[in-house]
């Protein structure tokens, strides 16, 4: 489909191709991914749902920061995107 220059970012151990201006969520969907988060209570997989920043289902960890809305955040070359487990604050659990 139409778009500008393409580039790459990392999703877990995979290289994802994105077009300039594309959101992280859109690039992941285009690459065939459906989920990139597990819920806090059931551990159920979640991905993109509302696509416009309302539902907070598509949370993902970007460059070490958890809870980014993948549907809103534009992908940038070299981003390190990781699947988010629960609240994404595993570093704080004891």
């Amino acid at each position: 489909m139409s778009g500008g220059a393409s580039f790459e970012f990392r999703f877990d151990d995979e290289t994802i191709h994105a077009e300039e201006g594309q959101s992280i969520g859109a690039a992941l969907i285009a690459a065939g991914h459906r989920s990139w988060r597990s819920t806090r209570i059931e551990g159920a997989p979640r991905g993109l749902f509302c696509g416009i920043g309302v539902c907070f289902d598509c949370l993902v960890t970007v460059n070490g920061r958890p809870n980014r809305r993948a549907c809103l955040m534009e992908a940038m070359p070299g981003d390190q995107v990781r699947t988010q487990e629960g609240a994404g604050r595993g570093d704080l659990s004891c």
Partner: protein
Amino acid sequence: MATSPADSRPYDLAVIGAGPAGLAAAVTAGAAGARVALVDAGPRPGGQYWRHRRGDNGALHHEWSTFQRLRQGLTDHADRIDHLAGHSVWHVERTGDGFRTYALHSAGGDRGGDGDGAERVVDSRTVVLATGAYDRQLPFPGWTLPGVFTAGGVQALLKGQGVLAGRRIVVAGTGPFLLAVAAGLAQRGATVLGVYEAGRPTAFARHPVVVARNGVKLAEGAEYLATLLRHRVPYRTRSTVVAAHGTDEVTGATVARLDAEWRIVPGSERRLDCDTIAVGYGFTPQIELALQLGCDTWSDFDGALTAFPDSRQCSTVPGVYLAGEVCGVGGAALSLIEGELAALHAVHTATGAVPDPAAVRRLVRRRRAQLLFADALYEAYPVPLGWMDWLDPGTVVCRCEEVTAEAVTEAMADLGATDARAVKLYARPGMGLCQGRVCGYAIACLVGARFGRGPNVDDLRALAGRPVAQPVPLGTLARTVEDE
């Protein structure tokens, strides 16, 4: 606070939201000589309706020339209009002589995403709320599976990102928007297995005058239907998706016929193999900022909670104007008119500049025609309450807090909750990150049903009130308190 405008005088208008209504308001006010802050979460103006990527030629958009004209207006009046892109508003409050808007700039500059970047405070004499709307959802078994999207989400992926949400797609819900989504998907090469319209939109035929006056919109609808026909996409009324199937993602859907109350017609269930389901049951206005400011709200004809405007687009709070879906879902054409009207009256309030009476009369006349059309639409696409029949006890109703239908019922049956507020406290629906935006309507329906009524305004308000409209870092809140 961290940042303040170079010019410390308050703006005449703070326009919140840069979709059709907000853009029209900002450009109208700028052209009238007022100083405007246009505060918007998106990286580019346009809102959901004109959502686009950098370099988009507008081929997939309706009325793109209108957008280009408005965008040019922002440039032409750049000395008076400050467009604050990438700014999520989390609170608006009254001050002594106006209003204070609190926003967070997204961390990655204009890349969008979540605000933990710079804080921005905007002082203004008046506020125009043009915050838009999002898809209304009704829960059903399996709707939390990846591959179930809102219809608007699928549309945003297609129009804003150039990405197909899936390959074999079922579109379901109610309202004319489903046709636009399905037609776009089919044109771009997806297999659309069907459009399942839960309603039976025949009421339109009873409004010949409205139909005649809105030929353009109806032609648009006819165009979508023709596209669906060309791609052999079935369009079924009084049927919808009542369950999604799969373990880690969607692999199928159950569609069923519905009776007039939207209960499943026994034996009519049919399984479809699909990888994607796009659902939407009309729209929910984003009214939390209106509620923060104390604007009166009412339950619109289709049961959605909306802020109440007077003939000047002013809310029940002086100085707070409403434009677009926030005061009733009526589409882009109506939003543009409301934006212009709101701006003319807000400019009058802020600067004393009296609007041209002929211009106001013309806008009011056009607004009346559009409102008639919107009312006819509401009548054609009601949401009756039989959808609760689709739920299993274990169906998740609140996606954020993973609260089941059973837990909501228990909060009332066992714990004694008699309204939505109590249900929220006992069972936690609406307490997650989305703050009830997605489940609010459904919870209000479930509570109402137990007490033999429909969703009422109090229950809807209990799930729509959000003192903090967007997630903000605690440090930001703390600094805001210190400042006072």
